[in-house]
């Protein structure tokens, strides 16, 4: 059983560009959450998707948007990239049950120049 997978593993963009990151959840998981981990910091919650809807959002601007597909996979889109968007972006999946453990993918490292 494959765990959470993310693509690409690394990405380099320039300021002002747009980027799309992808995530496939663990089998049987219907909830996907996205986190941003800046260098030397803990992950920060961006948003969570369930039943193809964003149901909770952290303190991130509207430049950050997402999507969940019927097969539960998800995309994170970031528009008008800033240097400060450089980070490791982590996807986590879980079943939609109370106290369920979130399982994380390996992350996508984004560098904005």
């Amino acid at each position, binding site marked *: 059983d494959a765990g959470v997978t993310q693509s690409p593993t690394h990405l380099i963009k320039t300021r002002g560009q747009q980027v799309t990151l992808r995530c496939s959840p663990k089998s049987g998981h219907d909830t996907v959450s996205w986190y941003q981990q800046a260098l*030397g910091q*803990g992950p920060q*919650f961006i948003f969570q998707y369930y039943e193809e809807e964003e*149901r909770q959002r952290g303190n991130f601007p509207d430049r950050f948007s997402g999507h969940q597909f019927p097969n539960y996979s998800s995309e994170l889109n970031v528009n008008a990239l800033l240097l400060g968007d450089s980070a490791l972006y982590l996807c986590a999946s879980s079943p939609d049950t109370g*106290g369920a453990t979130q399982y994380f*993918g390996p992350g996508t490292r984004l560098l904005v120049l």
Partner: protein
Amino acid sequence: AQSVAQPEDQVNVAEGNPLTVKCTYSVSGNPYLFWYVQYPNRGLQFLLKYITGDNLVKGSYGFEAEFNKSQTSFHLKKPSALVSDSALYFCAVRPDSGGYNKLIFGAGTRLAVHP
């Protein structure tokens, strides 16, 4: 404000000695508590969690954690450290009320186990 504190940036311990990585939280209600480990250039790997019940929780790779409600702490422990335990450890909390599965993380503690 809801927060998680890991007061030590780094913990150094000799192989074979017991280790403790500290975590305190500030969240209302009855939160769920988690520990994750991160190896270089990798995602987060789940170690253990506390939801309810026995205050001592056992997890993967011989790790355990003790929940203390009065001190709002959830310290990670291992009786005998291994060099391979060297990594970055994160404490996380899922707020009880209406938080779905959103996790709030601490800043992380780097564990260095010396031979």
